[in-house]
């Protein structure tokens, strides 16, 4: 957490001010009992009513001043904490945007989301509390002792002794409590998970008749959580009574020893009363502090998670000296490319070489884990190759700027992702400057136009987050339109027709053929019927090329291909 606080630098003046203001606030809080002591010792003892009124007026001024300090400190703290949160969020988000897919895989998308949102909120909250309460507690201790010393040095020992006792009591409880809190969190997460699994798997659970089993599983998690909950709360039950007891006994001590001092004529009654109130102030500030102590472990977990993100250096960055391709044709070449995922034993792709040029359709087919998606992800440089090289228009992708490279490419991913916004905005995502005409044309080619016009607001219809208000097939078609509107030199379709019904699929491919005539087209596909008329079919098997050629050639030479074909088509169709 400390390391994240270096981002507090721009706020150092404000923080310094918060310290000062808090100090004055504490002083005013402590000054009130002191003035009260004066009322007792000077005013009451001597029966001096004007004095009492004068001091009373002074007390009002002091408390007003203290309030002012507190309000301003609150104002500054809110700005500092919110500003810090804002800066940190922006920094994390900007950093994450520079990540390659590899970093995303490393941390996980869901986790990255939580880190950018909840974790930072957590840190921000603790920062706020630290600025308001944690700063106050030590000042209150120091100030309390100081005030006590000015009144009576000998009796101050009671207060000096009180502080470590209270602090260690809080510390002991916190030390026992923190692991319990952590355990509680884990158990809550577990119950959460079991519940979630029960919801998502409801059809499976019922069809396998495993309701009883799930009930037991839930009950186990529930019971576990309850038991820890009881333990945590029992421990916390001890906290307040213990602290109160310590405070109260120190009060007794103050009265007893103070009484003796008064009897000896070394001290006055008003001082005694002030002492009791100092002790109370100190205790309350320490209790506040204890609240933060329990929060800090959790915030530091959050802080570590955020720091991890910031410390992660994206593996893929532009070369210091980028090269520009001379042509803009869309020529894609793989030269003996080998690639493995981090930590994998075997390469996901090995020794891949092929060339795909403009006007050609190259299809890639193969089994689960054969590396099809991996292969095409290498072209827009989502990953870097281990050895060999990938050239686009004759230039190694690592030497080009990522922007220039991706400008040439229109990608249609396996899972169609749409964003909140209108249909038109989603299509225009491919090319910000596209005219309405271009958008409409792309939608038509992608076979999306019919359903778009049927929507209530046509191209201005809103797509909700995650595209939940359009069907899977419609999403895919919009995602295709988005790539088309770019009019890229290289088209990459990553199994992009799977959610389409037979008819739309066929119409789409017919329309695409003209549209992409001058471009290099790469298609990852499942259905043999999709790839059969490709100029070149690359059959991948376990990351290696099992065969390259057109349908007819492969049927003669490639066993793997024949196997795939025969699983999908009947005899006559193969012929």
């Amino acid at each position: 957490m400390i390391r994240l606080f270096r981002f507090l630098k721009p706020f150092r003046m404000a923080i310094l001010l918060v310290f000062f203001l808090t100090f004055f606030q504490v002083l005013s809080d402590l000054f009130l009992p002191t003035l009260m002591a004066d009322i007792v010792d000077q005013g009451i003892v001597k029966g001096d009513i004007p004095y009492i009124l004068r001091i009373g007026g002074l007390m009002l001024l002091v408390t007003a001043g203290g309030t002012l300090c507190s309000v301003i400190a609150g104002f500054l703290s809110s700005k500092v904490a919110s500003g810090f949160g804002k800066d940190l969020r922006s920094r994390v988000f900007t950093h994450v945007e520079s990540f390659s897919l590899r970093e995303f895989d490393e941390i996980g998308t869901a986790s990255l989301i939580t880190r950018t949102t909840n974790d930072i909120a957590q840190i921000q909250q603790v920062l706020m509390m630290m600025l308001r309460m944690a700063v106050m507690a030590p000042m209150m201790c120091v100030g309390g002792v100081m005030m006590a010393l000015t009144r009576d040095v000998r009796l101050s020992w009671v207060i000096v002794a009180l502080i470590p006792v209270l602090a260690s009591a809080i510390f002991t409880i916190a030390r026992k409590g923190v692991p319990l809190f952590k355990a509680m969190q884990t158990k809550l997460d577990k119950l959460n998970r079991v519940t979630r699994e029960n919801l998502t798997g409801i059809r499976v659970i019922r069809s396998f008749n495993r309701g009883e089993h799930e009930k037991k599983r839930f009950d186990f998690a529930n019971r576990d959580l309850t038991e820890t909950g009881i333990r945590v709360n029992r421990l916390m039950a001890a906290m307040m009574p213990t602290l109160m007891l310590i405070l109260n006994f120190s009060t007794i001590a103050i009265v007893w020893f103070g009484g003796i001092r008064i009897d000896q004529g070394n001290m006055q009654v008003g001082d005694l009363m002030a002492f009791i109130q100092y002790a109370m102030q100190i205790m309350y500030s320490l209790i506040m502090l204890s609240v933060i102590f329990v929060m800090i472990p959790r915030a530091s977990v959050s802080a570590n998670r955020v720091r991890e993100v910031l410390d992660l250096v994206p593996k893929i960055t532009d070369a210091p000296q980028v090269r520009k391709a001379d042509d803009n044709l869309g020529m894609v070449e793989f030269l003996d490319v080998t690639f493995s995922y981090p930590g994998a034993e075997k390469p996901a792709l090995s020794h891949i070489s092929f060339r795909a040029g403009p006007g050609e359709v190259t299809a890639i087919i193969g089994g689960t884990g054969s590396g099809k998606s991996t292969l095409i992800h290498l072209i827009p440089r989502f990953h870097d190759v281990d050895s060999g090289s990938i050239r686009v228009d004759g230039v190694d992708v690592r030497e080009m700027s990522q922007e220039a490279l991706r400008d040439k490419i229109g990608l249609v991913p396996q899972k169609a992702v749409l964003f909140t916004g209108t249909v038109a905005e989603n299509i225009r995502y491919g090319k910000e400057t596209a005219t309405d005409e271009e958008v409409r044309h792309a939608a038509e080619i992608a076979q999306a136009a019919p359903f778009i016009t049927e929507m209530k607001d046509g191209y201005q219809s809103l797509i909700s987050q995650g595209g939940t208000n359009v069907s899977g097939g419609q999403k895919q078609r919009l995602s295709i339109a988005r790539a088309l509107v770019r009019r890229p030199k290289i088209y990459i379709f990553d199994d992009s027709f799977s959610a389409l019904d037979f008819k739309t699929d066929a119409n789409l491919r017919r329309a695409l053929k003209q549209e992409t005539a001058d471009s290099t087209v790469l298609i990852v596909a499942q259905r043999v019927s999709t790839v059969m008329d490709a100029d070149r079919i690359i059959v991948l098997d376990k990351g290696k090329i099992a065969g390259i050629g057109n349908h007819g050639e492969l049927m003669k030479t490639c066993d793997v291909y024949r196997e795939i074909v025969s699983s999908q088509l009947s005899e006559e169709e193969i012929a």
Partner: protein
Amino acid sequence: MSRQGHRPGGGFGGHHRHPGGRGFGIPAEKAKDFRGTMKRLIRYLKPYRFRLLAVLVTAVLGTVFAIVSPKLLGNATTILFEGMMKKLKGAPNAAVDFDAILQILLMLGGLYVMSAAFSYIQQLIMAKVAQKTVYHLRKDLNEKLSRLPLQFYDSHTHGEILSRVINDVDNISNTLQQSLTQLITAVVTLAGVVVMMLTISPLMTGIVILTLPLSFLVTTVIASRSQRYFMGQQKALGELNGHVEEMYTGHQIVKAFGREERSISNFNKINRKLYDSGWKAQFISGVIMPLMTLINNIGYVLICVVGGVLVTHRAIQIGDIQAFIQYARQFSQPITQTANIANIIQSTIASAERVFEILDEEEEVPETAQPRIISSPKGDVQFRDVKFSYKKDVPLIENMNIDIKKGQTIAIVGPTGAGKTTLINLLMRFYEIDDGKITVDGIDLRDLQRGNLRSLFGIVLQDTWLFHGTIRENIAYGRQDATEEEIIQAAKAAHADHFIRTLPEGYDTILNEEASNISQGQKQLLTIARAILADPVILILDEATSSVDTRTEVHIQTAMHELMKGRTSFVIAHRLSTVRSADRILVMNEGRVIEQGTHEELLAEWGFYADLYNSQFSGDIPHDKKNIG
């Protein structure tokens, strides 16, 4: 939505609800039927009524002791003061009566110990009561969920249900643990303090009570002010979370289309908005604390002054001022607390109401009095004049008649979203049909014992569901008493054994929460193994489209063929080869079965199916046309 601000420590079990006014002014949700829900919640506490009584007694005792002590302490001060005053006046034999003071202090010590003990006991009992109550509430909820029809799950998002089972129950738990006892002590303290103050000085009590309306005024004015900002903050927060979620899940697209800059500038815009309303909400609600302190201090000063004057006039004792100051401090605290607790209780009742809403949902139609059991099923399935609709006024299936002999394969085809899952819903009796009947081996589904009915079916769905646990456990899910040998056999039959063995931990590999440590295709293989192990007479298969691909598909196809042998199978088909070899094809569109028959029959009809079939191959294999005609 207000819970977020209220319970920053929610994940911890919320033990750190802030003592001060943080979270003040966040609009609390209101329950629709406050009293009814309240009563119902109290019913959950009934088994603990004796313990709760004990909590009440200890809370009252503990508080009363705590209330008496300042007065006693004040007496000690008075004795000191008087002794000193006498000395000052030079009275003979003037001395502080230390015996009396010692006596008072000893008594005080006793009181303090008792008070601490009582409040400890009270919290201790409450810990158990609260946690146990919540345990039962969760258990009831979970059991209720297991009796709810699928319709409930289809009409509520997971997040919604989850938030009720987890967050709302947690909210109730925290309130029981803390706010309830807080409320008791606050009320007792308030009453006790007022009584004690009155006995000391009605005049000074009047002064303290005068500051009350001021406190209320400040709280309400500020609270209403801050609401606007809290709402703005909540809105900006929602927007920000939405943006982050979208941009991260769509990272590949953002990259591919080079839109990082835009995404960042959008983020910064929303972030700025969040900051603007966030710090204001924070600040304004944070102002309450110092202002309350100010009002308290004004009261404090007045007490000092008025008390001082009164003492000089010998109207009250010096120790009484000291006691009074302590009372005055204790007086304002429970008031702020009660205001806070009122808010909390309101949101708790709202939570409870949401929980009870689930508990009140209509359950699955109960089994008949004497449910029948098919002990040696064959797998004949019949639909007789079946009528069904999800919504009353939108008829979906009317007069559906299907006759399926055991071992036959039925392919269900149609465009995406044609409602193919409807059939599954009806077969498994996840939904009740409106009219007609569905029978297995001649027995109406509604006469069958639910467990028995479901044991007849095995399903392999496209959205593979696996749970957090080992691969072995996941396969064994198909049958409770499966031996190790049978599990491995099933995995082998599903062609999953090989890939499982290549994993570092083999069958003991733990699938993580999203099961992202194995591929989608592998997941599918596991679900097939699970179905194989279950060994049902009737199968419902969702043929893979994109999740499992070609070569694995070959394995899956063989595994599925093996699995389908001798079993009645309903296949949601995407592959033509499956469709062509099916004994019967059901063609669905827009939720209805529009055609049925064999491949040849349907082609001869030149209807929807023929169109569908032809369109797939048009343009691709022109020479294949002859086969269709």
